[in-house]
């Protein structure tokens, strides 16, 4: 975002955000206030993912599902300050990954980076890294060994997330190419969705998948997660303006509008099928949030409605496709984040009109650039995640035993149960 911002200034953003981008870098308290709270909002999305996922598993696995998220939050928080930030935002090594200049946050202090303290930019980015890893867990709930998850998560952060974040935002090749990704459609969503699919394929389906009912044990919990996501996503998208300005306001409005449109779309699709579904409207909302992410600061509110409707349709049918193929990518990270992110990245190329120009504004080439970004992320994320999963499987094993799976992971892996 920071780098992107600089890049975009010649493209016309300068005029728009003149009030908040100063020539000599100095901290602006308003921008800093907005980024502080935005960072906190993105942090809240992380347990939001935990509840969103936790409500959809069986009650014998709800703690283990939440634990995947809590442990990821804790683990990546520490890894990010130790070396993750450096790999993603250190001085570029051939446009592919960041150098080790920021190891242990050396040189990352209270001085301004744009109009906010560098430390704050680092933390805002850190929350993005954490949530991306956390999202991947949706593919593997109810059967993955906790220890294997910790190992996989560490490797994946290092070898998948950090490089891709660098490509797009850290001064890497994709950003240089002109790919538009306002708040992380490729880096966060395509990335996590594809990787969840690769990992789930290696891991295999849950015992009884397809025959035994895997009823969501607590839909209000899933709704709680969904609304925390909706709420926190204002920080995620509007915070990505890195300023409290008009672009932030635009991103905010687009986030809400696209989400609402996608939620309605999904609701009507489920209604056409049978009845307006609560799990459906919640899932549709997340699909809309995902799809507007890369576009949030580049499109008009009317375009965001189109993006939202598209997200509802694309993800709904992707989910059905996944089910029909009998693939147990359990909580549909691929269908919602992978496909939603893909649609969003392409749609950004189509609808961009603020601070950048897309197809409809007469720049069809942008769609091509977006496709390059999408493709690169799909291929890299899938391949590396697949290989990492195979390695972890071979070395320590990915799955719990059949008996542990039957009894439930809460008891088997954590010695606890959720409800007395």
């Amino acid at each position, binding site marked *: 975002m920071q780098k992107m911002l600089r890049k975009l200034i010649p493209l016309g953003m300068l005029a728009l955000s003149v009030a908040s981008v100063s020539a000599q870098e100095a901290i602006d308290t308003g921008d800093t206030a907005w980024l502080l709270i935005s960072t906190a909002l993105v942090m809240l999305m992380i347990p939001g993912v935990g509840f969103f996922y936790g409500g959809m598993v069986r009650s014998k696995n709800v703690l283990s599902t939440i634990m995947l998220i809590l442990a990821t939050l804790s683990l990546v928080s520490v890894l990010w300050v130790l070396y993750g930030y450096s790999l993603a935002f250190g001085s570029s090594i051939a446009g592919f990954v960041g150098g080790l200049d920021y190891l242990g946050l050396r040189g990352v202090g209270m001085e301004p980076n744009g109009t906010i303290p560098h430390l704050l930019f680092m933390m805002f980015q850190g929350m993005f890294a954490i949530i991306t890893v956390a999202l991947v867990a949706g593919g593997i709930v109810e059967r993955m060994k906790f220890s294997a998850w910790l190992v996989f998560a560490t490797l994946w952060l290092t070898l998948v997330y950090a490089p891709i974040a660098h490509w797009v935002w850290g001064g890497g090749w994709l950003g240089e190419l002109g790919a538009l990704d306002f708040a992380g459609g490729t880096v966060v969503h395509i990335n996590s969705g594809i990787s969840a699919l690769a990992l789930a394929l290696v891991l295999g389906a849950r015992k009884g998948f397809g025959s035994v*009912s895997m*009823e*969501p044990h607590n839909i209000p919990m899933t709704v709680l997660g969904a609304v925390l996501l909706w709420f926190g996503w204002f920080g995620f998208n509007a915070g990505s303006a890195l300023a409290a300005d008009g672009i932030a306001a635009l991103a905010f409005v687009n986030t809400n509008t696209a989400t609402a449109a996608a939620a309605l779309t999904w609701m009507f699709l489920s209604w056409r099928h049978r009845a307006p579904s609560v799990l459906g409207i919640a899932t549709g909302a997340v699909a809309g949030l995902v799809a507007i992410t890369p576009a949030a600061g580049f499109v008009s509110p009317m375009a965001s409605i189109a993006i939202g409707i598209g997200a509802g349709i694309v993800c709904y049918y992707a989910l059905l496709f996944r089910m029909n193929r009998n693939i147990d990518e359990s909580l549909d990270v691929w269908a919602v984040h992978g496909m939603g992110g893909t649609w969003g990245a392409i749609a950004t190329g189509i609808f961009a009109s603020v601070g950048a120009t897309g197809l409809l504004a007469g720049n069809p080439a942008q769609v091509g650039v977006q496709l390059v970004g999408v493709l690169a992320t799909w291929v890299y994320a899938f391949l590396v995640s697949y290989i990492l999963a195979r390695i972890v499987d071979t070395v320590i094993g990915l799955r719990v035993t059949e008996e542990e799976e039957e009894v439930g992971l809460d008891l088997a892996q954590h010695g606890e149960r959720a409800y007395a």
Partner: protein
Amino acid sequence: MKKIEAVIRPERLEAVREALDAQGFHGMTVTRVEGRGRQKGITLQWRAGEYRVEFLPKVKIEMVVAEQDVEKVVDIICSTAATGKIGDGKIFILPVEDVVRVRTKERGKDAI
């Protein structure tokens, strides 16, 4: 004394309770259960598409009554709990050898 175990639709519980109350049958113990029979589970909506649940929520009423009241109670339950659609439930009648009231240690009919 007999024990009447009636498995009925949860939404009929209140009506059954009122009808039994009206006839002076106040003592009962109720359990939330899940059942299966001719009615074979239910289809619920997933995020998109559907999934099956093999058991349906039912309510089990347990009442110990004197021999002569059995038919009366069975009648009341049948007529208030029935909707005419599959899944209305069953009533089982079991022998009871003795009843004790915990509070007073009274035994037999006096304890019901």
